[in-house]
């Protein structure tokens, strides 16, 4: 049993030997804060991506000609709506609008704002929108990156697009996407489909793709099969495919960082092992004295495990707090840029706070077990040596 005097003595030792422990404590805290920052960023991005993709249709159908993606006839929407299981089908356009002079681009997406289902989906990604008001003039909903970029160019209220005929098209900035969707909507502009077609130069009878909703998950494979069997020249993309693509992208990036930091953690553990293996004469003497005073090997190991555990736990808690503040309050400067890569438009994501106890617990075990092992093995080797020999 561990008595309270035992804990008192550990506290006393930690306090009196604080100079000896401070370096280990600081390095441990830094490693934990970096590891937890990556986990927080990765988890936050994954959640935001997942939430944003919920607003996506279940199927996207594109027309393929000669292996190349081409415009899709809008009448396909009506045809696909007749397939059993499909609750809704509509056409959509999208295309990248390049600002040649500035080497920047926007992703224009045009949807049918008279379609109730489109509007209800839209409300999940835009804070507040009055559709009637929106449709009174040529208006658009913009991503945070677009909004900031246009502001820099003194377009705070509207922007003048150029149609393929060289005509200027003034479009009012009506609203902004919610911050939770920034990962996907940063460079996006959403506008009525007719306006988007005009700007992108797409024929009014054509669209870029057709979107379908299939509410019953069990029906989705059947719908996909029917689409494939009735049209040889289409590409069917399911929502899950897009979701997996995004998840994999950030999992892959997070994985690389985790691997790097795991290597640094292991290196640190090796350093710890070395440091305790080359334990100083005074430390050896202390262990020898305690043994001579009646402390068993078990008592010594218990003392060192608890001493190390205390340092590890405090370093871990502090590391997690620093990681949380760094990511969710300061938006992970430096690490964010490395993580998200170079963006077309300036990107200042607001990571949505998330705290996954499962992952944090795993990180704790992943950190604390090697941490204790790295120290306990060399200490055990000293504790089992002849105490009288050690003291002399």
């Amino acid at each position, binding site marked *: 049993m561990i008595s309270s005097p035992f804990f008192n003595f550990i506290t006393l030792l930690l306090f009196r030997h604080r100079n000896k422990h401070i370096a280990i404590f600081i390095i441990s805290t830094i490693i934990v804060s970096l590891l937890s920052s990556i986990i927080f960023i990765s988890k936050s991005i994954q959640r935001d991506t997942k939430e944003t993709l919920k607003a996506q249709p279940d199927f996207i159908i594109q027309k393929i000609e000669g292996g190349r993606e081409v415009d899709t006839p809008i009448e396909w929407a009506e045809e696909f709506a007749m397939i059993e299981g499909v609750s809704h089908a509509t056409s959509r356009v999208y295309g990248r609008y390049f600002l040649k002079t500035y080497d920047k681009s926007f992703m224009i997406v045009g949807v049918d704002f008279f379609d109730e289902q489109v509007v209800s989906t839209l409300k999940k990604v835009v804070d507040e929108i009055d559709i009637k008001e929106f449709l009174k003039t040529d208006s658009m909903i913009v991503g945070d990156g677009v909004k900031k970029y246009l502001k820099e160019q003194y377009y705070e209220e509207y922007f003048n697009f150029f149609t393929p005929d060289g005509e200027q098209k003034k479009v009012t900035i009506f609203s902004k996407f919610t911050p939770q969707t920034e990962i996907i909507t940063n460079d996006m502009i959403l506008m009525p489909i007719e306006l988007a077609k005009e700007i992108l130069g797409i024929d009014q009878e054509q669209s870029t793709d057709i979107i379908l909703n299939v509410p019953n998950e069990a029906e989705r494979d059947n719908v996909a099969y029917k689409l494939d069997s009735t049209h040889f020249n289409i590409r069917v993309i399911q929502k899950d495919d897009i979701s997996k693509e995004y998840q994999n992208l950030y999992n892959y990036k997070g994985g690389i960082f985790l691997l790097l930091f795991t290597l640094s953690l292991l290196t640190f553990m090796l350093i710890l092992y070395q440091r305790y293996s080359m334990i100083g004469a005074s430390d050896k003497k202390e262990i020898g004295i305690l043994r001579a005073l009646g402390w068993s090997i078990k008592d010594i190991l218990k003392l060192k495990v608890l001493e190390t555990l205390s340092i590890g736990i405090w370093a871990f808690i502090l590391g997690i707090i620093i990681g949380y503040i760094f990511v969710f309050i300061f938006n992970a400067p430096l690490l964010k840029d490395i993580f998200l890569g170079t963006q077309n438009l300036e990107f200042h994501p607001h990571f949505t706070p998330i705290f996954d106890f499962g992952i944090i617990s795993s990180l704790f075990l992943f950190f604390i077990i090697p941490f204790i092992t790295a120290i306990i093995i060399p200490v055990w080797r000293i504790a089992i040596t002849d105490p*009288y020999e050690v003291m002399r």
Partner: protein
Amino acid sequence: MIKINNLNKTFYPNTPREFQALQNINLHIKEGELTILEGVSGSGKSTLLSLIAALQKPTSGEIIVDNESIAKLPDFHASQLRAKKIGFIFQAFHLFENLSVEENISLVLIPLNFSQQDINQKVKRALQKANIEHKSKERVSNLSGGEKQRCAIARALANNPKIILCDEPTANLDKTNSLKFIEELKELKEMGKTILISTHDPLFREISFSDKVVEIEGGKIKI
């Protein structure tokens, strides 16, 4: 209280460094006796003390302490024996310099699972017995040699052991403090403690209250 029969201790056996520290030692010490082990450095006195304290295991032979054979005691039982029955006073004090006097003394009591209140009481009693109560909160690093020795005595008395082993206790003391220590030994003997002192300090030859003087030379008891 302590019976040693045919005791041998060889260091690094079967290696080129093999060294026989003790050869065929036979020694009987009764309860309450004060025994002085005399001999030059390297004669085997300290080794004998460490074997009696079960800090090492003998190569062969038997050691009986308080009716218990300790030659082959496993670590936990050997530690319990030291914690409960033996008080150690070392040549270099072997105190924790960055802890206070009372913290050093309480170290002996922690493995015995006493409550903090019991520990405090026992520490206080030991401090009084060793006349170092006034320095209880002082860090050991700030103490003089004599005070350190009194702190070491208090630590050795904290668990109220039957046996006190002193390894060259005056080696780091001046003559005045050595004489004071000898006076304190007399008090310990009067308390009924069985005391075994390993020393080569000639001051111990003059003490009147010793029961036995054993001379060790080259790992053997000189007859």
